[in-house]
């Protein structure tokens, strides 16, 4: 187990250069694209002297390398700075306002995609070569190639506009929000035993998470199917049967073995999931990190964009680390 600890520490240290490179790129790109936070906020008509004064106050008149080093120093001491536009709130507070929305959507989309993938993939594998199998394989390809905004709009039309079953945008009906504990509405509703907000939050989550879940499930369907077929044909499965182990248990062992590569995919998918969440958020006016990021890029809110990216990168790194640890715990070949 101590090797596992060493592994975790190494993995964590490896995150630092990744984040640093990402941060540097974002820093440069933001300054290369035309415009800056000041002009985007007050417009071009303001006299140049006033603009200069505002830039000076924001520290934007300093040479880039000084700005860069000052910002880095902040990041390393855990300070993401303040927003450069209205209100100048601390970036971390802004992130905390938007991150729970994204996390909630991501978790629901993720769980749905894995569930759908495992169910469809196993059905296909157990009925290998049948029409059902072909159906599942076609499903996997279609799901994989669906374009999120297009598919999201299709669901909005069907369930929101035509059937009027579900809300087509937003996170909660105004006035229904539960008392904030974690910022995750579903969890907070449960914790405060608020059934009205729970139902409302789930209704709002339905379409965006189904969109995300279905689009991302395609890869799981395929992987689970192929793995399971492979595992089912292996000697040790036949050996279990030859020892008179009940079929139910044999299938359990097969599923467990087929699941190992799925965990790897989960780690990889999580980064894609966050990207998918950005598209989903803009389709469903979901007030999450994606929406926040797009808005602040428009305003050239340098610190906010940089902060959001650093935060995202750290989060993805953390998740992939967690996935790796789960993987190591499940597969003894990795652990020892």
């Amino acid at each position, binding site marked *: 187990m101590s090797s596992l600890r060493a592994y975790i520490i190494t993995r964590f240290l490896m995150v630092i250069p990744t984040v640093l490179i990402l941060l540097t790129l974002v820093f440069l790109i933001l300054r290369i694209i035309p415009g800056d936070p000041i002009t985007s906020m007050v417009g071009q008509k303001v006299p140049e002297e006033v603009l200069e004064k505002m830039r000076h106050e924001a520290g934007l008149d300093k040479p880039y390398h000084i700005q860069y080093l000052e910002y880095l120093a902040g990041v390393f001491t855990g300070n993401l700075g303040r927003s450069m536009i209205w209100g100048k709130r601390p970036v971390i507070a802004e992130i905390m306002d938007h991150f729970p929305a994204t996390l909630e959507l991501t978790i629901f989309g993720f769980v749905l995609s894995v569930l759908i993938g495992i169910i469809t993939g196993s059905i296909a594998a157990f009925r290998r070569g049948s029409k059902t199998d072909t159906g599942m394989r076609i499903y996997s390809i279609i799901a994989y190639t669906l374009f999120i905004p297009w598919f999201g709009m299709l669901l909005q039309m069907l369930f929101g506009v035509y059937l009027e079953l579900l809300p087509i945008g937003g996170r909660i009906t105004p006035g229904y929000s539960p008392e904030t504990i974690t910022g995750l509405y579903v969890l907070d509703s449960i914790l405060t035993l608020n059934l009205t907000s729970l139902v409302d939050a789930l209704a709002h989550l339905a379409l965006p998470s189904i969109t995300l879940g279905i689009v991302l499930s395609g890869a799981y369907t395929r992987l689970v199917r192929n793995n399971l077929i492979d595992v089912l044909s292996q000697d040790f499965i036949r050996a279990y049967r*030859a020892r008179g182990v009940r079929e139910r248990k044999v299938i359990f062992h097969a599923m467990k073995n087929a699941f*190992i590569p799925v965990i790897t995919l989960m780690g990889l998918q999580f980064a894609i999931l966050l990207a998918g969440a950005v598209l989903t958020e803009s389709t469903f006016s979901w007030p999450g990190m994606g929406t926040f990021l797009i808005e602040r890029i428009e305003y050239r809110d340098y610190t906010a964009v940089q902060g959001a990216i650093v935060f995202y990168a750290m989060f993805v790194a953390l998740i992939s680390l967690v996935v790796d640890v789960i993987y190591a715990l499940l597969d003894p070949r990795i652990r020892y």
Partner: protein
Amino acid sequence: MMLLEVKNLTTIFKTKRGVVRAVDNVSLSLDKGDFLSVVGESGCGKSTLAYSIIKLIDSPGEIASGKIYFDGKELTSLSEEKMRKVRGKEIGMVFQDPMTSLDPLEKIGDQIAETLMEHTDVTKKEAWQIAREMLEKVGLPPDRVDSYPHQLSGGQRQRVVIAMAVSLNPKLLIADEPTTALDVIVQEKIMDLLNEMRKEGRAIMLITHDFALAAERSDRIAVMYAGWIVEMGEAERLTKDPLHPYTRGLIDSVPDVWVDREIKPLPGFPPDLVKPPEGCRFRPRCPVATERCMKEPPGVEVDGRYVKCWLYEVE
């Protein structure tokens, strides 16, 4: 009554190319404490015969006809649930590749214990204790119960597989090429172990393509060719004085079954079982084939031995 009696067993695979008669009208029997080897080149239906006996033939295969009597039961008509109770408990299996016949995710102890708990009323703790004893019995340190398969060598794994196969004290142990994937020294040890299991009164059915191994270890040998048993009899006599041209060819092609002999490789390959040669299936490779061999040869008894060849049919 014999422990195992296979009567006119035919197992087929319905493939896209046609019907493969992998085991064709095979009969054999095995008594308690017997050591029978089934020998033949690869693709002759040996494994199919072994899996037919425990009725583990996957689609597109099926037992087309014949009967399997085992210890007072007729297996081909047994329900799947009753058959499951025979597998492992009454007939143990050892497989060719110990690298792939153990579940990589489960501890050795768990794998042995699961089998025990499936067939008997032992608690998990008792099952683990038995697992330790079983490992000791096959010459492994008992604390190996806590190991995972990848932590063991090939020979050790095969010992585990044998421990697992004998842990429920089955009356018959079928070993399908148990030493093929192992190196020579380990092979010897695994064969010694199988022999010990036999000395405890179990019947052993060894499936192998290695004639020398079969000659050295078994009481009786059944030679299989293209789905048929072409010769069967007491091991020493069959080896010293083979009747069937295929048996002769096999013996001549392996070194040191009996010393001081020239090695002559057997030319050609076993036929495609979708469309086997007409008449005797060995005909295309047989040095002494005649006109009559265009018809299926009869199975005849020649001084206590079974042989399926026209040479021994006197008209």
